[in-house]
């Protein structure tokens, strides 16, 4: 075939060597970070579920993003920009550049979400990605943003892992998490339902369900409850009757539904149809708990949510200035009040813009530094802090209940208690959050 000669060998190794050295030449060293905006505008990527079980939440998130962009560019009434404790935003875009955006459909699937985020970064030049209902998606996209060197502002993601074992230096979460839900909910449940209870968990089978179930179980067992069983249900399930039926004879007197969105609507409806709420087990009324609540879900489940307890990140009926301003501008634009998903995504967009202004750059490392340890107020949750060690926001948590006498189709939840931040706070190395590393901020390029 070929003859090995010394000359040939030298030639070949020189070619191979040049080939291996190539990448150092062809990476363009011009920009200091990925997608540095060059013209008069900056592009943000809004990556939300437009199909799948969380599509309702995704649609509301998108509305909030559009509103935030309008406010950042100086349109509308400014919303929460007027009540925000930091005054760096001037309504002239971010750092004088007009804010533009691209949208994508995550389909509530990690693969599709990453493909969509990748095309935003590679094709549209997005300098920040935000969104994601479903923690699985949020974690997958957060990992991608870390690799690509852009900031990820997490939307609706409630898993402990997002800022626990899967935390990333380029990722930031404003939303609360499973641990906080458990810590806020357990004392209320103890006060209403007593210490001696047997709980049966139905849990969405992915990172969010697992960690929330673990948190609720730990928090309720600390109050003296007993956990009878925990059954994992696939995210794509639509008919929960085969999961609800075994609850009847399990000896449990509380059913905890670790479900969200369309899943929760279906499983709760199924549980109510089986007559669980009218049953008396162990001489106690059978109760249902939905640890993570949202108005959209409550509305979808209709009558069934009356009197059912849960926790939420924010609710539109709060009476602080930030909430009022946001509900007003959202209501004026769309004709109905925003959900907690809309709130957290709106706040995340403003927080990102504000951090850019304060840092004076879009460089992810500068923005990250500006967000770490940032304390702010006026965004609807009271005083809030972005903890530097894990990029999780710490703030008060709301315990809510399905309203017995709703006055409108939006007025379906009532706030039972505002659990103070101190009660839901945990150490960075808490066992439920251990095992990951933030790493270093990655500016890409």
């Amino acid at each position: 075939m070929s003859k090995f000669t010394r000359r040939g060998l030298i030639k070949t190794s020189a070619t191979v060597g040049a080939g291996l050295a190539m990448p150092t030449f062809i990476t363009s060293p011009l920009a200091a970070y990925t997608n540095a905006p060059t013209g008069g505008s900056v592009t943000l990527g809004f990556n939300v579920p437009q199909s799948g079980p969380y599509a309702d939440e995704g649609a509301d998130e998108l509305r909030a993003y559009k509103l935030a962009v309008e406010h950042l560019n100086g349109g509308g009434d400014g919303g929460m920009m007027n009540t925000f404790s930091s005054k760096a935003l001037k309504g002239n875009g971010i750092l004088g550049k007009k804010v533009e955006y691209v949208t994508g459909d995550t389909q509530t699937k990690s693969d599709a979400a990453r493909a969509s985020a990748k095309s935003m970064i590679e094709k549209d030049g997005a300098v920040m990605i935000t969104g994601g209902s479903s923690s699985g998606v949020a974690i997958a996209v957060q990992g991608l943003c870390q690799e690509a060197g852009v900031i990820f502002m997490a939307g609706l993601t409630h898993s402990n892992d997002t800022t626990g074992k899967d935390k990333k230096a380029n990722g930031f979460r404003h939303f609360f998490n499973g641990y906080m839900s458990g810590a806020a909910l357990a004392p209320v449940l103890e006060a209403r339902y007593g210490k001696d209870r047997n709980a049966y968990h139905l849990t969405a089978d992915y990172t969010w369900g697992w960690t929330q179930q673990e948190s609720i179980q730990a928090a309720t067992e600390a109050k003296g409850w007993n956990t009878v069983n925990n059954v994992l249900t696939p995210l794509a399930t639509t008919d929960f009757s085969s999961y609800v039926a075994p609850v009847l004879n399990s000896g449990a007197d509380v059913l905890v539904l670790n479900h969200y969105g369309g899943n929760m609507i279906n499983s709760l409806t199924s549980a109510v149809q089986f007559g669980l709420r009218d049953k008396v087990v162990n001489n106690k009324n059978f109760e249902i708990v939905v640890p993570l609540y949202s108005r959209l879900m409550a509305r979808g489940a209709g009558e069934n949510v009356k009197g059912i307890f849960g926790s939420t990140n924010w609710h539109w009926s709060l009476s602080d200035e930030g909430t009022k301003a946001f509900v007003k501008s959202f209501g004026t634009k769309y004709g109905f009040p925003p959900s907690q998903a809309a709130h957290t995504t709106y706040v995340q967009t403003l927080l990102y813009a504000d951090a850019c202004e304060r840092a004076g750059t879009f460089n992810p490392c500068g923005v990250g530094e500006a967000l770490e340890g940032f304390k702010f107020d006026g965004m609807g949750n009271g005083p809030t802090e972005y903890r530097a060690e894990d990029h999780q926001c710490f703030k008060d948590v709301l315990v809510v209940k399905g309203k017995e006498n709703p006055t409108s189709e939006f007025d379906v939840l009532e706030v039972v208690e505002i659990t103070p931040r101190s009660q839901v706070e945990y150490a960075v190395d808490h066992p439920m959050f251990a095992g990951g590393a933030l790493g270093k901020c990655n500016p890409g390029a």
Partner: protein
Amino acid sequence: MKSISNADTRTLYFVAIIAILAPFILNPFPTDSGLAQFNAGYPDLMQRFAIYGILAIGFNILFGLTGYLSFGHAAFLGVGSYSAVWMFKLLSMNIIPAIILSVIVAGLFSLLIGFISLRRSGIYFSILTLAFAQMSFALAYSVLTPLTNGETGLQITLNDPRIFAAENVSGNLPVTSLFGMEMRDTWTLNLGAWDFQFNIGYYICAIFLLIAFYLSIRIFRSPFGMMLRAVKTNQTRLNYTGINTRPYTLAAFVISGMYAGLAGGLMASMDPLAGAERMQWTASGEIVLMTILGGTGTLLGPVMGAGFIKYFENIFSKINDTVLHGWFAWMPDGLENVIVWILHLFTGKGWHLTLGIMFMLIVIFLPGGLMEGMSRIGNWWKRRKGGDENTSEAKSTPAE
């Protein structure tokens, strides 16, 4: 390449040239123009074109030659991805061991499934493969969570052992590479208003695509390929003449499973994440669509079908209402809203609808897929040229 005919060599060169120039061909519109929406020349999508091309070529070896319609090919893709990600977690970020393992594991897995499913043919075979694929999906999705990380998908982390890799001092997630060439490295060429992106990962995929394509030509033209075609034409007759067809069909099944494994391994090499959705039956159905759309049993068809579907999935799904309003802003308000409302059904979330209509049209009017369309145009062209030799000179300037 002396053992393949001139026509095949020309096809191979054609694919090679297209693959090399893809960054130019797929980016016909200036970056800042309104039509830039239709540009497909960015690394992620180009990688997908090549990877799904490999997948469809492999599927075509089974379906196109033997006529056995497997509805479970996504399972091999998924298995390949998981193997590759595990290699990244355990050994190093070099893509070579990852791709080798993914091909081997997918091969073994397809040997097992093929051995059982090939006891039946026709619709029963399809149903068996579908059942196996759904079983694999359910396993990956929940039962085997420690191995697959369930719905979240298997990802690399900072704490992975990676025994052959140098110690990570940067504090960043390591990136997949081939002896130091990072898959994500991209060099952008600015030519006036145009930006062309040359990505290492894409060219690696393209090289694999060419190898896969060459191998498939060899298989098509070999006695083995002839035997597979005989199976498709009349298996009963072969059996009567005393030939046992099982070893041939099983070999075809395993080869095409390994192609899928290669695609899965490459996919994980470009983006080190493996999700269970990759194995769902809709993903398997997509592979069938690609092959039929492009032209079953042709060499080039499946690659074109794969590109066609991926283009729709990634480009049409991005056209949202705001973009539409931007296009038709010059119209009077009422008319604009009506047009946007109509187009809204076919773009953005509705891209499936557009794809469905295209698929129907192609299957009804061009049963041989895109390849038949091309050969019809080719024939028409030849006839026109042959028919009136004298006047053709003036007329035959290419219609753009």
